[in-house]
């Protein structure tokens, strides 16, 4: 549907109503209006809305009391109304006493001081709150940090984020590694995670972003995240996918692959948060890469053939030694332990 359709109808309804209000209104016009209204419910509701507004405008007469006929009063001089905006000064023409005016002036001055003071305090807070804070983890370390807006970020091993909580948005730069975000709900300040030429936009949700040299992965466990590509030229965002809970998106160059699975699957991928790596029919090559990502001890596959072995299970990522021992005892794998790495050979 044309997004201007409703505006066009609103304009037509207003034109009808204004014409009905004129002295040139005839019976034929009346029939024309009736036909226009009958033509569609959209016409009818638009007309009703404006008609009700125009009727309510009649109450403005209450403001006209005491105003000299034929003059349109200045703006914001309506006295005594419980305004939600700002304190309005007394009506100049109203028969109030001088004392009352002085009181109002003092109240006004006090209010001004409050407003100025408040604005300064607020500005100060916003200014300083928007400074950048960085968090890092070294290999083998995992850490959850609380952010000032009530959100939290769990940094996986060897990860780094830069956090900038501004007034308009909350910006997180994922410099390397992976982080899981539990985002505090705040519709006025979207939560943006920027990684590898893309950004994930959330309002209040839980998701993880992982940055690899050639791809970026987003896993959503709750709520909805909008994935946007950042134009290389000026960094302006271009929407590329809407990710619901359970989605696993892998962005590779200009392509995005979205796998919409169950939330349980998504949670499983993020089991590193509880200190585990979970594999399910995973090639040894991938599993080793995962261990290398999280653990501090480097594993190397000696023969390409064993990289194809499929494995499954739950392993503590800080304990690659246990993983290696299991491989040694359960598979046809020989382990060579070197000072800086562990090499896996076929037996």
């Amino acid at each position: 549907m044309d997004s201007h359709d409703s505006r066009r109808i609103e304009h037509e309804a207003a034109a009808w109503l204004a014409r009905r209000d004129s002295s040139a209104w005839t019976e034929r016009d009346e029939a024309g209006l009736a036909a226009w209204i009958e033509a569609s419910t959209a016409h009818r509701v638009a007309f009703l809305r404006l008609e009700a507004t125009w009727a309510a405008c009649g109450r403005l007469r209450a403001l006209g009391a005491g105003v000299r006929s034929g003059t349109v009063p200045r703006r914001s001089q309506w006295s005594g109304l419980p305004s939600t905006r700002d304190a309005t000064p007394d009506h100049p023409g109203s028969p109030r006493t001088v004392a009352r005016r002085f009181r109002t002036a003092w109240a006004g001055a006090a209010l001004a001081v409050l407003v100025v003071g408040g604005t300064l305090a607020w500005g100060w807070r916003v200014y300083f709150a928007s400074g950048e804070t960085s968090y890092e983890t070294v290999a083998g370390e995992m850490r959850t940090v609380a952010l000032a807006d009530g959100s939290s970020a769990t940094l996986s091993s060897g990860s780094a984020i830069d956090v900038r909580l501004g007034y308009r948005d909350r910006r997180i730069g994922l410099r390397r590694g992976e982080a899981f975000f539990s985002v505090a709900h705040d519709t006025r300040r979207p939560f943006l995670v920027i990684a590898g030429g893309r950004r994930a936009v959330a309002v209040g949700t839980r998701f993880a972003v992982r940055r690899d040299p050639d791809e970026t992965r987003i896993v959503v466990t709750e709520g909805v995240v909008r994935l946007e590509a950042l134009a290389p030229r000026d960094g302006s965002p271009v929407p590329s996918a809407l990710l619901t809970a359970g989605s696993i998106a892998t962005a590779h160059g200009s392509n995005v692959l979205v796998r919409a699975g169950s939330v349980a699957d998504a949670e499983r991928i993020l089991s590193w948060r509880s200190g585990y790596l979970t594999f399910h029919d995973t090639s040894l090559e991938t599993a080793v890469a995962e261990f290398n990502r999280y653990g501090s001890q480097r594993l190397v596959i000696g023969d390409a053939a064993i990289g194809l072995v499929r494995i499954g299970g739950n392993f503590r990522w800080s304990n690659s030694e246990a993983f290696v021992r299991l491989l040694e005892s359960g598979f046809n794998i020989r382990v060579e332990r070197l000072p800086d790495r562990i090499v896996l050979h076929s037996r």
Partner: protein
Amino acid sequence: MSAALDSWFTREILVHEQALERYLRRCWSHREDVHDLRQDIYVRVYEAAGKALPTAPKSFLFTIARNLMTDRLRRAKVVPIFTVGDFDGLNVLVEDDSLERVSGRQALARLAAAFDRLPDRCREAVWLRRVEDLPQKAVAQRMGVSEKTVEKHLAKGMRLMANWYYGGQSADSTGSAREASDDDGFTRQQAD
């Protein structure tokens, strides 16, 4: 349709427009769609109420709003990319400064604030016609313009007042300023 239904719609549905707009703006990030969405929601509410009058108008309104957004998401094959938000999560709206709740004086204050934000000529026309109760012809003479022009000022005044009085933009001046200029843009477009 009956006058009773019309007045029910004004009394029970329109008064929630501010909350409805806030809800739509939160769920639907294509701001320019909100006007259109709102219109469609009103149409559905009106037509459904013609068959059976709902007992809880406000929750009925929001249920229809949620269903409509879900339908649109489903129908649109490419568009929903912009849309972020969990409609169900935003199901319950507590904030309630709907016109049915506010007192007569507060409603008048809202009306006065809306009136004060009208463009000068528009404001003058509305005042002379609605407060001083001058016929359009006399308003035209007073303002030194044609009756047709007065009619245009009034039509614009009605639209802006509706958006500010019923709509969700009365507290947020930047949004409404933009809305007003959007509006002018549209008028110009129409005139071309």
